[in-house]
């Protein structure tokens, strides 16, 4: 028994010593590696930055001539730089990458067995904003692994080719899903030319797809789709989709959204989420003719409906703020006639109204400060 213990202690001691040595070794190796890479990368990095600063007018051949090892050391920094530049400098930098075969390699790696490599390649192609990679990236939208699909979606957004829109929408229709917000962001980046595709997709059988397209249209400011979206608001079968339609009618800001949104506010038996979204959207819309409908909601039973109605009124300019003040005065009048005086507990309508007016005053003051200073 004693022997076993001694053996175990010996083993433990060896592992303890080994681990301590390993900790030190890891640090030594890492620091040496960093020094080496920094040294290797220093020259190419400077040359690259100067080349880019000159918008690619001088020094191109030198960059192509940099030995592979030095380039590998400098590449991560150079890739990071891609995201920080625009215009000619960006184009110049991309040209360096292309001449060194980075794009070719990345396109090849899109077929790699390793998902990390596929994802990295997709990332690089997105950073390079390489339009000719779009078909291959669209293919990646059906990749086995979610993380690869996600990178592909992001890259397509970065590149911004509207031709990818329908492929992206088709790819949304899956069980293991790309996050909706990511898909929406990418669709928005594809620009106004994608609007037609998005509008058509509002009839897609999947609710999620419809919601994503609605959000994208709203962010794109696609005023041409207003009537279509209004129809979704009134007719769609899924609540979440109708809520999205309401929110985006508000974002679009066109008068055509006024009537459908107002219609949805009542009766109070409609889903709360929908009425809340519609109230908020009316505030976004900015049409003073919505004031009476919103004012009627101030004493709604549902907290968030009343809250959004009050804040919507706040944003509708003098007409809305007058309505808010009217509610408060009415309240004060009732209290006076009931002889209750200053200690009356405010009704929730008056409470919301006061809150909205106070915030309006603060916002006005903030705006003044910003424009004066």
């Amino acid at each position, binding site marked *: 028994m004693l022997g076993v213990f001694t053996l175990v202690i010996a083993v433990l001691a060896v592992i303890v010593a080994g681990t301590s040595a390993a900790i030190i070794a890891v640090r030594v190796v890492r620091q040496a590696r960093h020094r080496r890479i920094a040294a290797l990368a220093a020259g190419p*990095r400077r040359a690259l930055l100067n080349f880019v600063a000159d918008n690619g007018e001088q020094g191109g051949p030198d960059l192509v001539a940099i030995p592979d090892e030095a380039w590998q050391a400098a590449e991560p920094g150079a890739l990071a730089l891609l995201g920080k530049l625009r215009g000619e400098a960006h184009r110049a930098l991309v040209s360096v990458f292309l001449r060194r075969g980075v794009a070719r390699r990345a396109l090849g790696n899109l077929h790699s067995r390793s998902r990390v490599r596929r994802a990295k390649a997709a990332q690089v192609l997105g950073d390079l904003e390489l339009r000719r990679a779009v078909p291959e990236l669209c293919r990646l939208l059906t990749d086995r692994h979610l993380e690869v699909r996600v990178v592909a979606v992001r890259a397509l957004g970065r590149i911004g080719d509207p031709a990818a829109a329908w492929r992206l929408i088709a790819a949304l229709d899956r069980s293991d899903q790309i996050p909706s917000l990511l898909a929406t962001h990418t669709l928005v980046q594809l620009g106004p030319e994608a609007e037609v595709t998005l509008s058509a997709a509002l009839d897609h059988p999947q609710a999620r797809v419809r919601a994503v397209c609605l959000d994208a249209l709203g962010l794109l400011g696609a005023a041409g789709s207003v009537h279509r979206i209004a129809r979704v608001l009134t007719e769609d079968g899924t609540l979440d989709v109708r809520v999205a339609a309401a929110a985006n009618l508000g974002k679009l800001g066109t008068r055509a959204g006024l009537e459908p949104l107002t219609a949805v506010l009542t009766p109070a038996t409609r889903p709360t989420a929908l009425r809340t979204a519609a109230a908020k959207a009316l505030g976004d819309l900015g049409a003073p003719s919505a004031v009476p409908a919103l004012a009627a909601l101030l004493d709604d039973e549902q907290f968030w409906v009343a809250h959004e109605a009050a804040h919507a009124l706040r944003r509708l300019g003098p007409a809305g703020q007058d309505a808010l003040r009217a509610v408060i005065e009415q309240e004060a009048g009732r209290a006076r006639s009931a002889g209750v005086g200053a200690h009356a507990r405010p009704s929730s309508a008056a409470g919301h109204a006061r809150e909205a007016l106070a915030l309006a005053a603060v916002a006005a003051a903030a705006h003044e400060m910003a*424009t004066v200073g």
Partner: protein
Amino acid sequence: MSNILLVEDDPDIRHLVSYRLTRAGFTVTEAADGVTALHEARGEPPDLIILDVRMPRMSGLEVCRELRAGARTALVPIIMLTARARQQDLEQAYAAGATDYVVKPFSPRELVDRVETVLARVTG
């Protein structure tokens, strides 16, 4: 020969902009963070300051406010480099005292053009 103070924590961007400005005929002083920037600016006020909004230790907005509060630096034109261009970000920049702003990702050529425009506006 105008003197420009460049305040930017990213060494690559700093090198790039500095190089470009030098080629365009300016003298450039570099600062990697807000504290150094204030030190440099107060020591010898430059003709224009390029200031990154997001920096460690002291944000660009704070640096801007401090510069506007000091007598020698209150009137130096400041161009802010900001990563986001939403209404409130711009309002914040102007509220802190910025003269103009450039949004990242940016084009170095446009930045130099903007520098020249602002300087012309101030001296003209």
